[in-house]
């Protein structure tokens, strides 16, 4: 089991360029999430998905797009990169739980460090 795999690990973009951050998981988890972490800040939710074909916005979705065509993959797209998008991006997944008193934990990838100059 590889868990959650993110590629690339590092990337430098020029302002206005576009790119896709890849995320794949091999645990057959329904739920997947994209977070960003800025220095000295907590993780902020960008987008999430509760299953293939279903996505929804998180706290900070502006400037990003996602798709979920399969259970395994949840790519994050930046169309017009801006310096404000310089951050570390984490993809996470978790299995669905039916008990309200228990929450299956998030499994995180190792992150993509993105710099926009």
């Amino acid at each position, binding site marked *: 089991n590889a868990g959650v795999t993110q590629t690339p690990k590092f990337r430098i973009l020029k302002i206005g360029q576009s790119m896709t951050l890849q995320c794949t998981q091999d645990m057959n988890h329904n739920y997947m999430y994209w977070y960003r972490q800025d220095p*000295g800040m907590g993780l902020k939710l960008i987008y999430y998905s509760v299953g293939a074909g279903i996505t929804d916005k998180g706290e900070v979705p502006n400037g990003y797009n996602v798709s979920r065509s399969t259970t395994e993959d949840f790519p994050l797209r930046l169309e017009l990169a801006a310096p404000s998008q310089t951050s570390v991006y984490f993809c996470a997944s978790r299995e669905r739980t039916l008990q309200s008193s228990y929450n299956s934990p998030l499994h995180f990838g*190792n992150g993509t460090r993105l710099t926009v100059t």
Partner: protein
Amino acid sequence: DQQVKQNSPSLSVQEGRISILNCDYTNSMFDYFLWYKKYPAEGPTFLISISSIKDKNEDGRFTVFLNKSAKHLSLHIVPSQPGDSAVYFCAARGAGTASKLTFGTGTRLQVTL
């Protein structure tokens, strides 16, 4: 609006002593709380959690306490070990089926010899 707050950015503790990491929240709708640990260049990993119907949960050296009236939780690590040196994030689950987590800003724990 920071709904989950970790007011101590850093903490230094001697090996063998107790580490206490604190977390406050403002949203009374949060019903599940988790602690994650993060090493440099890695993603966060789950450490321990607690449901709002409990006030304590223990797992080995790690214990989480929840005080709902004060909207406060804490993570105790006893005894602290050098390998515990990491950034610790508190997270809270909001309502809804997607169980989105809101994270605090993290506390960097350094365990010294």
